[in-house]
C-alpha cells in the first residue's frame, strides 16, 4: 500500500534528498517540459482563454461566497435523483462513513478511480484496516500502489517513475495482487498499458462497489462529473452495483451551464488536450443503467478553515489541473514527495498548510518552498494568485512563534534551499517582477533575528526575488 506522509521531514530536507536522485530529476524534467509546451499550444488554440479564465475564477468565487446555499441545493437535487448525501467534518468521519457503507454491501473489495479527496483522507489505509481491499485502477495510481510508493503529482502520480522502473514494478508485483504481468514484458508504454488492462479487467468485471471522487458537482441538477482518460473511471462508475463518491465541499458549480467553461479549461490545462478521452456525468441513479445505489460523501476536512481566510480562500477555486506543478522550477527540482502531502507543487504549498494548519515542520516550511516567480499564477485556469497566498502564509508562520522557534527554523531552511538552487530561482526571475500584490507586511524569513522587528515592508520591489532577499536579509 502507499506509504504514509506522517512524519515527513520538512521541505528542505526532503527536497535536498530529491535533488541528489538524478533519475528522479531526469524523469521529472522530461515529463514537465513535455507537457508544458503542449499545454501552451492547447491554450493558444482558444482566442478567448483569458476570458474563460476570468469567468472560471468569478464563478468559483461566487460559489464559495454562497457555499452554504449551494451545498443545501446540491443535497436536495442529489437526493431527488435517488442518491444519498452524507456529510463528514474530517477525514476520520469520512473514512468511517465509507467503511460502513462498504460493509453494508457485504463486500470486502472495492475498485477505485483516482481521487485526490480519498488520498487526502487516507481512505485506502482505513479500508485496509477494516479488512477491505481497495484497488486503484488509474494506471499511475496502480504504479504507485504496486510500487508501495507515494504519489508525486496531481495528474500523474507516478511521474517520478520512468518506463523501465514501471516495467520492473509490474513484473515483480502484479502477481501478488491478481493476474501477473505478461511474460517478457518490455518497457514500451503501449505494452505497459496493455499489462494494466489485463491485470485490472478481472477486477472491474467482478466489482460490486466502486469509489470515486468528482471534478465537479452541479448544484442546480445534482450532476457529478468525472473527467478521465483511460476508461477505468467509466468502469468504476458504471459496472458496480454501489457507487460511493467522496468529494470536497468546494467542488460545486452552481449551474449546468457553468460546465461550459471548465470543460474547456480543465483538459487543456491538465493533459493539454482539447478534450480528455472520457467524461462521465451522472445524476443520482438511473433504473437500467449503472449502480443501483449512489452515495455522495461531502467532506470538509479543513476546507471551512481555509474559507475563513480572506486571502487564502482563493486556493479553494483550484480545479486540480496540475498546470502549476508543471511550470514550477522548485517542483521540477524538488519533486512531489518533498511537499509531504497528496497536494504537491505550488498548489500544495498553499493548500496543505491551510487544510492542516502550520503546526508541523513540513507545513510551516511549505509556504517557503517557492521562489515567488509567479509562473504558477500565469498558467492557473482559475487565476489563483499563489504567490500572494504564499506571502500571506509566510506572515502567519512568522507570527506563530518567537525567534529560533522550531517551525521558523524549518521555514528559513526551506527559503535557504531555494536560494542554494540558482536554477530554481533563475527560471523564475523572468516573471518575478510581473507578480503583483506581493506586499508582505513582514519579511518572509522569520528566523533571521536582525530583521524580525515587525516593521512594515515597502511594496514588493520590481527587482528579482534573489536580489531583494540578499538586500533585505543583511
Amino acid at each position, binding site marked *: 500500500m502507499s506509504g504514509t506522509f506522517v512524519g515527513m521531514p520538512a521541505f528542505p530536507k526532503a527536497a535536498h534528498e530529491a535533488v541528489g536522485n538524478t533519475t528522479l530529476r531526469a524523469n521529472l524534467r522530461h515529463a514537465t517540459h513535455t507537457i508544458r509546451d503542449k499545454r501552451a499550444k492547447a491554450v493558444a488554440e482558444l482566442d478567448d482563454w483569458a476570458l474563460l479564465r476570468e469567468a472560471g475564477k468569478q464563478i468559483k468565487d*461566487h460559489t464559495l461566497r454562497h457555499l*452554504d446555499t449551494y*451545498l443545501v441545493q446540491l443535497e436536495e437535487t442529489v437526493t431527488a435523483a435517488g442518491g444519498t448525501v452524507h456529510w463528514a467534518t474530517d477525514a476520520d468521519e469520512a473514512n468511517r462513513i465509507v467503511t460502513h457503507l462498504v460493509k453494508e454491501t457485504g463486500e470486502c473489495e472495492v475498485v477505485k478511480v483516482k481521487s485526490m479527496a480519498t488520498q487526502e483522507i487516507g481512505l485506502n489505509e482505513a479500508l485496509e484496516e477494516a479488512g477491505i481491499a481497495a484497488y486503484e485502477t488509474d*494506471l499511475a495510481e496502480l504504479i504507485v500502489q504496486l510500487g508501495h510508493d507515494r504519489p508525486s503529482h496531481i495528474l500523474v502520480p507516478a511521474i517520478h517513475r520512468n518506463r523501465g522502473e514501471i516495467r520492473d514494478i509490474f513484473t515483480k508485483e502484479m502477481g501478488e495482487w491478481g493476474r501477473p504481468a505478461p511474460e517478457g514484458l518490455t518497457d514500451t508504454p503501449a505494452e505497459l498499458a496493455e499489462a494494466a488492462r489485463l491485470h485490472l479487467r478481472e477486477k472491474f468485471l467482478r466489482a460490486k462497489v466502486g469509489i470515486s471522487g468528482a471534478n465537479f458537482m452541479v448544484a442546480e441538477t445534482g450532476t457529478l462529473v468525472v473527467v478521465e482518460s483511460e476508461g477505468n473511471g467509466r468502469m468504476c462508475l458504471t459496472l458496480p452495483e454501489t457507487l460511493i463518491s467522496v468529494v470536497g465541499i468546494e467542488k460545486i458549480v452552481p449551474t449546468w451551464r457553468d460546465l*461550459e467553461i471548465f470543460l474547456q479549461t480543465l483538459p487543456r490545462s491538465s493533459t493539454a488536450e482539447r*478534450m480528455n478521452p472520457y467524461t462521465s456525468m451522472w445524476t443520482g441513479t438511473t433504473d437500467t443503467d449503472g449502480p443501483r445505489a449512489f452515495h455522495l460523501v461531502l467532506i470538509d476536512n479543513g476546507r471551512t478553515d481555509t474559507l475563513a481566510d480572506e486571502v487564502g480562500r482563493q486556493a479553494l477555486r483550484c480545479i486540480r489541473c496540475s498546470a502549476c506543478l508543471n511550470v514550477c522550477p522548485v517542483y521540477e527540482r524538488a519533486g512531489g514527495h518533498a511537499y509531504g502531502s497528496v497536494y504537491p507543487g505550488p498548489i500544495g504549498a498553499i493548500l496543505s498548510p491551510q487544510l492542516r494548519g502550520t503546526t508541523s515542520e513540513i507545513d510551516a516550511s511549505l509556504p517557503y518552498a517557492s521562489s515567488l516567480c509567479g509562473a504558477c499564477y500565469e498558467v492557473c485556469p482559475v487565476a489563483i494568485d499563489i504567490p500572494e497566498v504564499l506571502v500571506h502564509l509566510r506572515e502567519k508562520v512568522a507570527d506563530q512563534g518567537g525567534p529560533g522557534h522550531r517551525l521558523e527554523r524549518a521555514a528559513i531552511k526551506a527559503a535557504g534551499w531555494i536560494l542554494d538552487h540558482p536554477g530554481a530561482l533563475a527560471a523564475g526571475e523572468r516573471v518575478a517582477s510581473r507578480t503583483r500584490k506581493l506586499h508582505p507586511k513582514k519579511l518572509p524569513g522569520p528566523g533571521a533575528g536582525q530583521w524580525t522587528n515587525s516593521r512594515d515592508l515597502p511594496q514588493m520591489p520590481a527587482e528579482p526575488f534573489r536580489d531583494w532577499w540578499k538586500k533585505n536579509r543583511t
Partner: protein
Amino acid sequence: MSSPTPPSSRERILARVREALTDAPETPEPTRDYLPTHTIDDAATVLDLLHENLADYRAFVHRVADDELPSFIGTLLAENGVRTVAVPPGLSARWLAASEVEQLLDEGAPGGAVLTPYDLDAIDAVVTSCALAIAETGTIVLDGGPGQGRRALTLVPDLHICVVRTRDQVVASVPQSLPRLDPGRPLTWISGPSATSDIELDRVEGVHGPRTLHVVLLCP
C-alpha cells in the same frame, strides 16, 4: 435544522461555512464574455473540423451516405474480424442488415436479455448512434437514448462503431452542446479511444475502454 444536541455533521459544516463567510464581500454576477463558439457558422466547416479533431485523437473517421451505411458497417465489421456485436435497444435494424455477425440484443430490445459484464467482455464490438458531436473538441456524446444503450455497452467491448447523423447532431463548441443535453440522463463524452498519459506524460492509446473507435459521419 433545530434538531437536539449534538448537532449533526451537516449542521456543523454549514455553520462553519456561514461563519467563515461572515465578512466576505459580496461577489458580482460572473461575467461570461468568452465566446459561444470559435468556429464560423458554416455546416461544412464545422463538419470538417469535427472530422479533423476526431482523427487527431486517433479515432477512425468515415463519411458514408445513408443508403450505403448497411454495407459499410458490414464491411467494417468483417475487416476487423468481428464475430459478435452488442446491440442497444432502439438501434435501427437496417444498420446491421448487411452484417454477417451474431447480434446480441441488450435488455430493452425485443428478445433482448441483460448482458452481464462478463457477457460484454466476450463480445467483439458494439454499434451505436449518439446524442450529438462537438467539432472543436472532437467529441461524441452518448446519453443512453435510442440506439445508444446503457453505458456498459460502449465500454467493455474492445471496438466501438458510433454513427453520427451530420444533418442535426453536430455542434461546433462546448457551449453549444450543453443546452442540448439532458443532465438527468447518464452522459458519456468520448474524445477518441481510451488513452493514458501516465507513462512519462506521453499519450498512449488503448487502456480500459474500447481500444478502437470508428466514427461514421452519416451524410444525407
